[in-house]
């Protein structure tokens, strides 16, 4: 208890002359961002570092955008995230306030005699002055507890801010992959449309030469038009994805002119270790930690609500200036808990605490499932992407190659050749979509475990698990 009192007084003194910013809290957010996402965050508060952050954003956008660059820009530039930082400011202020003593209340009363009631005197009597100074003594006793409470809330704010950083990083990565795959898909669609164009042009010329029926020519033309529509749609998806990324990165005007490679990276050689991810998630997830803090907060609040503390202790000292001198002495107001001894408040707090416990348990269950689900999706999409890359695409290439050889032997015609190429492009499209699903599953898994996956060890090749345990292989 004494230590806490000392600390409370220290806080009071510090807060009296502290900067209106929550530096220690944000430092931890900065550390969290670095370990969980590998990127920097910055709180713009008019320091020289602001210019460094602006310069970093400009520099990243001037080069071809990568996944890491996009995340970094967003973390430095996304206004919603910057708004969330202010929660720390609010929480810090609350923390300061918790350490402050209540201001004393000074009261003064002036009484003048009623002349009519007294016999007339030659000298009027001076008015009586009553002055009092009151102090909420309870606040002194409660400072440690209130500080504790405020600390918990500050912690929660820190966790919420940290979680917001992680969520944004995940969202940006997902949006970035979406954009890259959209560009790649549009390219496949472009080649598909070129093949359809060539076929339609040949058919048009065949019709001109009188070699095919109008019906045959119309069919080829319709296929070409449909292919062009598909391309237009794919191009539109690219623009959509681009704007989504722009919103997340918080850029506008000339800063939206960034370029990128426009293709998804191939599967990494090794999968991160996917065992014990559920335990990792339960330990690391910030939203779960925030819920845990909430329970602690309510526990502390219940502590604060002890029956013996409830009666409001009001202590004061008053002085009275009378004709014959100053009369002074202390006074005290006590609430007698006969009817309301705080049972209602305590019941409410207990209910809230139980609710928080349930939410915590529920969130833990959901988190475990999220992790399992993301892990399964990761492994499935990986297997499918490998299948496309190593089995289907080579076979489709072989179909094109063999079709060309039979075309050379005058066994198949040029339209069969174009179709074979189009079929190959359709398979490529499936590959890109599956690869996108893989990369997004990876982002989701990282988000589900609270930021970063353990470093890769071996290539994961076990089938997705649907059992309850944490990725333990049989």
């Amino acid at each position, binding site marked *: 208890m004494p230590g806490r009192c000392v600390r409370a007084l220290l806080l009071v003194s510090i807060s009296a002359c502290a900067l209106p910013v929550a530096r220690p809290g944000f430092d931890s957010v900065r550390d969290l961002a670095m370990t969980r996402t590998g990127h920097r965050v910055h709180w713009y508060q008019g320091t020289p570092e602001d210019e460094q952050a602006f310069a970093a954003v400009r520099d990243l956008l001037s080069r071809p955008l990568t996944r890491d660059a996009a995340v970094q820009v967003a973390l430095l530039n996304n206004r919603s995230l910057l708004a969330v930082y202010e929660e720390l400011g609010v929480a810090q202020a609350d923390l300061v306030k918790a350490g402050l003593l209540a201001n004393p209340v000074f009261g003064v009363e002036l009484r003048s005699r009623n002349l009519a009631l007294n016999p007339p005197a030659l000298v009027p009597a001076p008015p009586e002055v009553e002055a009092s100074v009151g102090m909420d003594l309870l606040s002194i006793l409660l400072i440690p507890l209130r500080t504790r409470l405020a600390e918990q809330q500050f912690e929660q704010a820190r966790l919420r801010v940290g979680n917001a950083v992680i969520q944004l990083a995940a969202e940006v990565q997902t949006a970035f992959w979406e954009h890259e795959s959209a560009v790649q898909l549009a390219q496949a669609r472009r080649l598909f449309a070129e*093949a359809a164009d*060539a076929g339609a042009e040949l058919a048009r*010329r065949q019709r001109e*030469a009188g*070699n095919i029926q109008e019906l045959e020519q119309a069919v080829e033309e319709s296929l070409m038009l449909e292919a062009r529509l598909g391309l237009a749609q794919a191009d539109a998806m690219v623009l959509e994805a681009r704007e989504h990324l722009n919103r997340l990165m918080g850029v506008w005007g000339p800063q939206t002119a960034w370029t990128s490679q426009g293709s998804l990276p191939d599967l990494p050689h090794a999968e991160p270790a996917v065992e014990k991810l559920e335990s990792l998630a339960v330990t690391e997830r910030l939203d779960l930690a925030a819920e845990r803090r909430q329970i602690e907060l309510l526990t502390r609040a219940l502590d604060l609500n002890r029956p013996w503390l409830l009666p409001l202790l009001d202590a004061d000292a008053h002085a009275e200036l009378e004709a014959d001198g100053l009369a002074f002495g202390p006074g005290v107001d006590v609430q007698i808990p006969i009817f309301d001894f705080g049972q209602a408040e305590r019941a409410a707090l207990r209910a809230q605490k139980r609710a928080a416990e349930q939410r915590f348990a529920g969130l833990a269950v959901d988190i475990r499932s999220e992790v399992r689900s993301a892990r399964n999706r990761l492994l499935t999409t990986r297997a499918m992407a490998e299948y496309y890359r190593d089995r289907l695409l080579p076979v489709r290439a072989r179909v094109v190659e063999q079709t060309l050889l039979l075309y050379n032997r*005058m*066994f198949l015609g*040029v339209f069969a050749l174009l179709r074979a190429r189009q079929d190959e492009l359709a398979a490529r499209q499936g590959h890109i979509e599956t690869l996108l699903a893989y990369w997004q599953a990876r982002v989701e898994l990282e988000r589900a475990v609270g930021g970063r996956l353990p470093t890769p060890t071996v290539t994961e090749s076990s089938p997705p698990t649907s059992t309850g345990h944490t990725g333990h292989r049989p």
Partner: protein
Amino acid sequence: MKKRSLTRRQLVLGGPPLVAGGAALLATSPAAADRPRAEQGPEPTGPQAYVPVVTPNGSTLPWTMDNGVKVFHLVAEPVKRELTGGLVINAWGYNGQTPGPTIEAVEGDRVRILVTNKLPERTSVHWHGVLLPNGMDGVGGLTQRHIDPGQTFAYEFTLRQHGTQMYHPHSDEMLQMAMGMMGFFIIHPRRARTPTVDRDFAIFLHEWAVKPGTMTPDPSVMLDFNLFTFNGRTFPSIDHLVVRLGQRVRIRIANLTMDSHPIHLHGHSFWVTGTDGGPIPPAAQWPETTVNVPVGSTRDIEFVADNPGDWPLHCHKTHHVMNGMGHDLPNMLGVNQQGVEGRIRRLVPGYMAMGTRGMGGMMDMGGPRNSVPMMTGTGPFGDMEMGGMFTVVKIREGITSYEDPGWYRHPPGTVAGPVTT
């Protein structure tokens, strides 16, 4: 190959004499009685009584004598046949080849043909056009039990006719014949007929359905064949028929396919002198430059090779002188493909536009393994652009061997050329 014919001649020379006893039998046969005296030639002066038939790209089945019976042995078995360089097929045949070896005998011979079955299924051998006892006819289920795999059957009968006959299975006939099981059965007359024939060739026609890049004929195909052969070979791998100027040439053509084949000879007209029914009386022989050989028939033609040079002998159904091609191709004749060709080449590297100016003069860009271009072959004046049922009769003056003499050296002033102003 021509050396082999000489060897066969030697074989005949060194072979057993004609069966004298059989002649007596023949004298009483109705066929012999019907034959006008005028057709019989002079008495043979030596043991050789016939000019052995040349089966280009094929062979003649040797025999042994067993107590006056000519014994032949046919082995029915799967074979690999090279139709031309780069094109080998899984066929069924006899004694390692398709068509099977030519059986040659003389009217009056008693022949015994042993047939061993090494096929995956049962078979039988029918002697097409041969007059014989019913039980030797070779119709599985009707005149005999089928020959099971591993079994050997014996067919024995006395020949009482002469002409160009055939042999082929009569079990699972459609499939076994589609796979190539057939051969010549040539019966020479007891006495050489006049005018005497100096060169005698036998060509067995066949058609196959073998998709480019595959090896096995599809026996269920009824009409859509894509490879056409003389004696199991396509142009340019069919042996040339080398003939000395002035020789009388006979060509026997057999057809057991699903189509008739009009076989055309350049530079000469010939007489149709025989069918698998027998010799055509001279007054009834008719002239042709193209003899239509119907399904299930043979035709003999004869001509005097009096026009020197390299003369094509080919089926006149133009699709039958092409190697495999598709029949559902888009028609690009007269269609300008400039500009589009480049765009397609960007999508499919190696693509070349085809067909705008016809199908000739095309570079071979390569095809699937075990396939050949539709048209091929090079002659002394450039590409010949042929395939399938196409060969050349080479008539040369004063040759003493039947080695391929190379291309004809034309006398000056006899070659068509551009007009110079």
